[in-house]
Structure formats: structure tokens, C-alpha cells
């Protein structure tokens, strides 16, 4: 078998285009993914144009807030990558060119309208969003992201206004100083202190009628204070009525970066290994060598085993090359190298057996390449569909299809090997072993008509 392997490696070495592709593909993919992941954590880019006068101060209920430096920009830029622009025209140009997914424009009157929310004449503040919905996926992404940002901002403001209202209530209950713009501070007595004063006045009253009347006032003041005390936590609850308690009940989830690397590695494995093995097997027939080889010491099963080993070697080479290219750009836990190697080898064997079955069925290099693409791509797409995004019955069918092909378990194995928070590597490798056995059997059956 080793001589056949050596022969395939010699042929590969003398096929400059295939060899260049085997090297260039993982390197290019690694560099692309590396740049994508290193670009501020993969956040979407949003142009940010602030028309509000930078000198203008924002006061909500008498307290000054830094709307530009503090709340709005800080919140926005924690969620997306902010690209500051100097004009509305520049914002439009960046959106049209696709430099950013959207532009957020804070209009000149934003602060006035925000301040009005805490007044007796509130006006709804509006921010302007410019988008370029040149495809449905991007449109959905922009809608979701902008909606999330606006919801976040509304929640923040609602909390501020609630806090302000709670402050007013507290002032009403306990008393204190209230600052009014352009007017001096005014003293608020408060219900609590009013009650104390009323109690002291009551002790000095002689008239029973006057006392009874004052008792009604004192009782009202107490009831008002008690009820307003209840209102304070209620206001806090209104500010954030629903809190989220997230618990993971199924599925180990690794970091998004790791998942992206695992997908890239699995896709590389898939294309390189399936195409190489399918093409290499079909080539044995196209070179008329199959019958001559298999009548010697190496039988059909030996030939199949050799092609799977060839696939595993190619898998390890290209995937490690890709991970090597990624290493300076993103963090890869090389302390988990044994697991990574095992996952790549198992995934490579799965794809190699799958490629062998395709090569034996197609029997021609071109047909096998076409068939490999036609089968592999839809399976890869199916493997990226998340549960809950389609109906339960459809997802059950998708899961069944995924289980029959090597992409899904290979992705799980590599993701789990790269990050301990990922899926169980052992289970994924066992799944791949079963896939190797099944596709090797199919390939062996298809080889029966290979010589004809």
C-alpha cells in the first residue's frame, strides 16, 4: 500500500495546479478568516454622525448627562464598530459603497427632545438610520442590529427617566432641595416632615373640631407617604420590566471565533479531501491502471484503504497549514494539539471515505469532481442550519441527513478539539468512524463495476 501512496504523492507533486491549490486554498482561507475575526471581534461597522452641538449640555430632570461622550456613543460602540463621519453626505456614501452596514445620525434637536421627556410637554426624540438593503440577509441583519441598538437606548433612557421620577417621589416623601434652571434652588418640605409639623401643631390645638380636621390631613399625609414608598420599587420595575435568566440546557457552545475557525477548517477538509480522493480513485480507472494494480499484491480493498490514508495525510497537511496561518492572528489553543490532530484525522478519514464512494460511483475524474461539489455543498449548508430556525419536522429530517454525511461530525470534532466548551470530541469521532465504515463499504461495492 505504501508504494501506491508514494505513487500518489509523486503524481501530486508533479501536478503543479493541484499542488498550488492544495497550498493556496487553506492559506487564503486562513488569512481571510483571520482578518475577518481580528477586525474588532467581527462587529458590524456602522457610520456614526452626530449633528448635536458638542458644546451643548444635556439635562434630564435637572441632571446633566454627556449624551455624546457618554451614553449614546458608548452604548453604540460597545455593540458595533463605530466609524465616525463628518457629514451626512459622507455617511450616505459609506452606506452606498458598502463600507458600513448602516449609518446612524443623531439630529440636531435630539437633546432638546430628550430633555422634553422629563417635562410637562414631552416630544418623541428620533434618530435617523440610513441603510443599504442590497440583499435580504443583509437587510435582516441591519434591521435586527439597529432595532437592538434602539431598544437598548430606549431602555437606558427609560431607566434614567424612571430614576428621575423616583428622585422626584423621594423628594416629595422625604423633602429636600430642588434645582430649577434659571431660578434658584427651592426647598421642598416633603410628606415626612409635613407629618412631623402637623403632629406638633395637633398637640397645641384645643378645638376638637380643628383636631379632627387636622387628623384627617395627618392620616392623608401618612397614607400618601406609605403609598408613594410602594411606588418607588414599582418605578424601578417599570424601567426594566423583564429580566433575562439564561440557562443552557443543551449543546456545548464555544466562542464565536472558534466556531468560525472550525467551520473554515471543516470546509477546507471537505473540499480538499473529497475532491482529492474522488479524483485520485477515478484517475486509476482513467489511466487504465485499476485492473493492473488490483491483480497484483494490492486488492481493491487495499487500494481503497490507500486512498483513505492519502486523504487523511492531505487533510492533516492542509488543515494544519490553515491553522498555522491563523495562529498569529487569532488565538488557537495548541496545548490541545493531540485532540486537534485526532479530530482532523478522523474528519479527514470521513471525508476521504465519502470521496472514495463518490470516485467509485462516478468513475471519471470530471464527473467525480462535479458530483463531489453537488453533494458536499448542500450538506455543508444543511449542517449550518440551527435548531429553531425551521419547523421541528423539517429539522428532524435535516438532522437525519446531517448524520449521514461527514461534515456535521467533523465540524463537532474540530470545534470540540479547538475549545473545551465545544461539543464532545469522542462522540464526534465515533460518529466519524461509523461514517468511514459505511462509505468504505459503499465504495467497495461500487468498485465491483470499476474495471468494466
Amino acid at each position: 500500500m505504501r508504494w501506491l501512496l508514494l505513487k500518489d504523492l509523486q503524481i501530486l507533486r508533479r501536478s503543479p495546479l493541484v499542488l498550488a491549490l492544495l497550498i493556496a486554498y487553506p492559506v487564503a482561507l486562513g488569512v481571510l478568516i483571520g482578518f475577518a475575526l481580528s477586525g474588532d471581534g467581527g462587529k458590524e461597522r456602522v457610520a456614526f454622525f452626530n449633528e448635536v452641538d458638542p458644546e451643548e449640555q444635556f439635562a434630564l430632570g435637572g441632571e446633566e448627562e454627556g449624551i455624546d461622550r457618554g451614553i449614546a456613543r458608548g452604548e453604540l460602540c460597545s455593540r458595533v464598530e463605530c466609524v465616525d463621519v463628518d457629514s451626512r453626505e459622507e455617511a450616505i456614501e459609506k452606506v452606498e459603497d458598502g463600507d458600513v452596514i448602516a449609518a446612524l445620525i443623531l439630529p440636531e434637536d435630539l437633546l432638546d427632545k430628550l430633555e422634553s421627556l422629563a417635562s410637562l410637554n414631552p416630544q418623541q426624540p428620533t434618530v435617523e438610520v440610513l441603510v443599504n438593503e442590497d440583499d435580504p440577509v443583509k437587510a435582516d441583519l441591519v434591521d435586527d442590529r439597529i432595532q437592538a441598538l434602539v431598544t437598548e437606548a430606549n431602555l437606558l433612557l427609560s431607566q434614567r427617566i424612571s430614576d428621575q421620577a423616583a428622585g422626584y417621589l423621594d423628594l416629595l416623601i422625604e423633602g429636600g432641595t430642588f434645582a430649577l434652571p434659571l431660578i434658584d434652588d427651592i426647598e421642598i418640605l416633603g410628606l415626612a416632615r409635613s407629618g412631623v409639623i402637623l403632629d406638633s401643631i395637633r398637640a397645641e390645638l384645643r378645638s376638637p373640631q380643628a383636631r379632627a380636621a387636622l387628623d384627617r390631613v395627618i392620616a392623608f399625609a401618612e397614607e400618601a407617604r406609605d403609598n408613594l414608598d410602594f411606588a418607588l420599587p414599582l418605578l424601578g420595575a417599570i424601567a426594566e420590566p423583564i429580566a433575562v435568566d439564561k440557562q443552557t440546557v443543551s449543546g456545548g457552545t464555544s466562542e464565536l471565533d472558534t466556531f468560525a475557525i472550525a467551520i473554515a477548517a471543516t470546509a477546507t477538509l471537505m473540499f480538499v479531501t473529497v475532491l482529492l480522493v474522488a479524483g485520485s480513485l477515478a484517475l486509476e480507472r482513467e489511466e487504465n491502471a485499476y485492473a493492473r494494480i488490483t491483480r497484483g499484491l494490492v486488492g481493491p480493498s487495499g487500494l481503497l484503504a490507500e486512498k483513505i490514508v492519502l486523504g487523511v495525510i492531505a487533510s492533516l497537511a492542509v488543515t494544519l497549514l490553515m491553522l498555522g496561518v491563523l495562529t498569529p492572528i487569532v488565538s488557537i489553543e495548541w496545548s490541545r494539539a493531540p485532540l486537534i490532530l485526532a479530530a482532523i484525522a478522523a474528519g479527514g478519514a470521513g471525508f476521504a471515505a465519502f470521496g472514495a464512494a463518490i470516485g467509485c460511483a462516478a468513475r471519471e475524474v470530471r464527473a467525480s469532481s462535479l458530483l463531489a461539489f453537488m453533494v458536499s455543498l448542500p450538506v455543508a449548508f444543511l449542517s449550518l442550519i440551527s435548531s429553531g430556525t425551521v419547523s421541528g419536522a423539517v429539522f428532524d429530517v435535516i438532522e437525519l441527513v446531517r448524520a449521514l454525511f461527514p461534515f456535521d461530525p467533523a465540524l463537532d470534532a474540530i470545534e470540540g478539539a479547538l475549545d473545551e466548551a465545544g461539543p464532545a470530541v469522542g462522540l464526534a469521532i465515533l460518529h466519524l468512524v461509523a461514517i468511514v465504515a459505511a462509505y468504505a463499504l459503499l465504495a467497495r461495492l461500487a468498485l465491483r463495476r470499476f474495471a468494466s
Partner: protein
Amino acid sequence: MALSQAGDGARAIEARSLSKSFDGRAALRDVSFTAGRGELLAVIGPNGAGKTTLLSLLAGVRAPDSGEITVPGEVGWVPQQAALYRRLTVAENLRLFARLEGLKDVEAAVARMLEQTGLGERRNDQVGTLSGGNQQRVNIAIGLLSRPAVLLLDEPSSGLDPRQRERLWEFVLGLAGAGTTVIYTTHHLYEAERYGNRLLVLADGERVFDGSADELHAAVGGGERDFEAAFVAFLREWGH
């Protein structure tokens, strides 16, 4: 060109009642024959007669549905289309198949075949760069690596020009002269008449004639102007 003698009479291969079907269609029906050491046996017949099937059974590439093949020594097989790796050199091809056949002294076998085929100077050339004739020589050399007692050649001169054909037959006759039994199929009837000590005629998977060219000529009355006409007349008599 010296024609070989009809061998020394020692039996090199015996086939008894060979039958083979593909998808229910009989490709070979109850075919028997023997060939002696150093004999040149030409297998001829119309298209679909079962010539290639017979050689593939003798080579062990396919198993017969019934019947037996007895070969005391090695069998070398040269398929109709060159079974070679075009991106490997001549020497690398020879070395690979020598290893796959389990030869003990691989380098000696490679050197011997390079010398025997006269391809020593082209040993480091990729096979894909060789002419059709030279590719066929490498193809035959691979079949001879294990010093087989019987060499099976399936349409060996197919695609070769007259000069290449002549050189090929010179080489084959030399092998037969050295004691190798050569069984070959051909569509060129003059190659059967000229180089074959014996002819095996197949039609619809059946053996319809086993004898010399003169005997076939005589079988149709001897009045035909040449061997090709005699062969056509023979087949017509058999309903083909």
C-alpha cells in the same frame, strides 16, 4: 524478421470450459484450449466475440462463472490501452509495478526491462511525453516484469503506426523465441496469419476454430484469394 517456431510442446497454459456472463448476457461460452511453451496463439474474431473477456479471465482480472485455468508459471498481462501513470517516469512506472508484484530485486527487474525494451535513455522521461509506440513498449515491459511463462497481449498494435508495429512484433517474436508463450488478440488479420503459430477464432463467445492459418484457409475450400477473405467466408459459414 524471423518467425518463431511453434514452441517446444510443453504445456504452458490450459483453459477448460470457460464461461462468463455480464448482466445475463453470455460473453464466453464453454471455451477450452491449450498453448505450449514459446507458442504464439492469436485470438481473433468479430467485435463482441469475447476476445478481451477471454484474456481478462486468463489474466485473473476477472473470475470465470465456470471452468478452470491451469498455468504452471506466472502470467503477464498487457491490457489494450496502456495501463500506465503518465505523470510518472518510465523507471518509476516499472518500479511501482515491480513492487506491486512483489518482486524481490526490483531494481534489477527495472534495469532488465529498460534494456529489453530499449528505453534506457528515456528512463527518466514522464510516460505522458512518450510516443504511442514507446508507451506501448512500457506497457508490455510492465507485463514482462515478473518474467512470466505466459504473456497476454490485448490488441498490442492498436494505435501504432506501421514502423512501430513492426518493432513491436520484432520484440514479441524475440520473447516467444526465448520461450515465453504469447497469447494475443488482434483486429489486424495479417498479424494473426503472419505471427501466430495457431489461431483461436471466437464468435459470439464460442470457440469456432482452433488451428493454423492454413487449416482455416483449407476449412473454407482454399479457394479464397487471401487469409482475410478466407476468414470472412469462414465466419459466414458459421452464420456470422
